[in-house]
């Protein structure tokens, strides 16, 4: 398999008061093929966004390895790093916060074209117009400022900017979460078209399970910094193995009437990542906990063909 992105036992610990550590990302391993979509789901504070920053090389991991397109992201030389950044782009949740309010769209999108020597200065206008066309926007956006656009349009601009350097992969960190339903569908279709036409790969981070199911090939579920389950999308959604995945899926209200499924209501809140419970981190809320759960940490392993899970129920 042609692996574009590969994480091996990646860790990120933040020191906090009292000689403790906040384990934001703990022993995370996965890989994404060229043109593939890797979905990452989990609740707030589970480490999704930290993971995104690690992948981009915006943060140094505490341990483990990250490879992009054959290059080691952590030990990359300056030259390699600029190649990685050209191949790997990110779009964030809030497009207004990621666009400079004082820059016109032509300059905001054109900046990375200039920095990366993609085109000559006099060709920028045409090139940006071409990029805007790709994301479904008119040329007259060129001279306007971010505040003149709606949320969905701004996210299109951010996508155009990410596309400027012709990347191989885009990390989308809750990229459609702040948009209205009808606009979410527009952006999701756009991302899908770009994948089909340009062979783009994605790491698609979201707490919205319905969109992840729709868009991803493989899905990983994170809980308190760890992947608790990973498998092909269809299998994970039709037959979740980990009790957390099961509860998460059952918690989503489904838009079909009369089909109110059995809902598993979890007890309590997600524990603080500074005080991760001993044994299985999920045992405090798990409806299926038994003897070993509060003592032994379950091993994350392949329990069926291509199905990875860390739970004592699966040995």
């Amino acid at each position, binding site marked *: 398999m042609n692996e574009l992105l590969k994480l091996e036992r990646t860790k990120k610990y933040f020191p906090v008061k009292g000689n403790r550590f906040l384990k934001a990302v703990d022993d995370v391993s996965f890989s994404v093929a060229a043109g593939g979509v890797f979905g990452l789901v989990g*609740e*707030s504070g589970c480490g999704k966004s930290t993971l995104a920053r690690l992948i981009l090389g915006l943060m140094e991991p505490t341990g483990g390895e990250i490879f992009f397109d054959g290059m080691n992201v952590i030990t990359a030389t300056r030259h390699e790093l600029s190649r990685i950044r050209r191949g790997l782009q990110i779009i964030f949740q809030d497009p207004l916060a990621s666009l400079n309010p004082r820059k016109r769209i032509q300059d905001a999108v054109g900046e990375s074209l200039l920095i990366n020597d993609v085109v000559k200065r006099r060709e920028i206008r045409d090139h940006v117009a071409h990029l805007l066309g790709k994301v479904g926007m008119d040329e007259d956006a060129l001279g306007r400022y971010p505040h003149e656009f709606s949320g969905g349009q701004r996210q299109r601009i951010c996508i155009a900017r990410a596309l400027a350097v012709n990347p191989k992969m885009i990390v989308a960190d809750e990229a459609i979460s702040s948009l209205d339903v009808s*606009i979410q*569908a527009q952006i999701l279709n756009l991302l899908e078209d770009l994948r089909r036409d340009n062979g783009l790969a994605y790491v698609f981070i979201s707490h919205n399970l319905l*969109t992840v199911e729709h868009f991803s090939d493989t899905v990983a579920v994170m809980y308190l910094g760890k992947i608790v389950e990973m498998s092909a999308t269809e299998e994970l959604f039709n037959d979740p193995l980990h009790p957390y995945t099961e509860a998460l899926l059952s*918690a989503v209200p489904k838009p*079909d*009437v009369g089909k109110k499924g059995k809902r598993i209501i979890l007890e309590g*809140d997600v524990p603080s990542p500074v005080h991760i419970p001993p044994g299985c981190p999920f045992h405090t809320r798990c409806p299926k906990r038994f003897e070993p759960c509060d003592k032994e940490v379950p091993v994350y392993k392949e329990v069926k063909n291509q199905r990875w899970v860390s739970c004592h129920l699966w040995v």
Partner: protein
Amino acid sequence: MIQSLLSVEDLSISFASEIKSLNTVNEVSFKAADQDFLGIVGESGCGKTLTALAIMKLLPSNAISSGRILFEGKDILAYKDKDLQKIRGSKISMIFQEPMTSLNPVFTVGNQIAEVLITHQSMSAKEAINKTIELLKVVQIPSPELRVNDYPHQMSGGMRQRVMIAMAVACKPSLLIADEPTTALDVTIQAQILELLGSLQERNRMSLLFITHDLGIVAEYASRVMVMYAGRIVEKSPVQDMFINPRHPYTIGLLESLPGKKGAKLKPIPGQVPNTESLPSGCKFRTRCRYVIEECHLKEPSLKPAGNSEHLSRCIRAMEL
């Protein structure tokens, strides 16, 4: 006919600017019976929150409202402030999306819940605190005797929303308005809160007006639903009817925008919600509608029965859809 608990009649809300007045809510009418679960769905800026605020008479001071809002037969819009305060928080309560901004950060949560009881039920401070602990138990906050002394920042988002709910139901209101109460929460916490609201509704026999953009929540919990677009109700019906037989192109578009099975291409609604300042002539949805015909440009359709008397749609082609 029996008198409805809440009856909103031709509610319009506009904001006057120096140049012209902006119509943000336009002739909205609906009723809520006892123990009703009415869902209001729509995208940002469609006027759903303003409608809710009008019922509480909490609109910003530059808003101009017309129409009638009858609560237990009396017009709220004609109430004096003093009379309103007797109703607010006791007979009608409201919870909001962001519990952190709705709670006062410098008072303990116990203090804030007790205040409601002292004000509306003239309890003594001691009685009120005991009742508060009881309420925290009802909303399933663990060790309520201790948490009653917590400040809002010491609690998680889900717990804060539970506190808001405890405060809202303290005086057993007959109507609870919930404005996107679970939007800021994680899905497992959202499931907890929805379950709690459902059980409280039964227990206190209250009516729930639930504002959301999540069609899933409406499908599973509401008994009736109204869809708003550009300040207007475009479709109103019992929940089942709307999901099986949507009669307005906007509703159809919303339903088709939802991601389903993998591989199936989504059918988003093209374009974007028009600005309140520049709404199109005729039907307000026509610029994004795929069923548009000549007539749609001329006159705005009225909300008419489509199929049965309970199912209303604001579309001249409702019966063809």
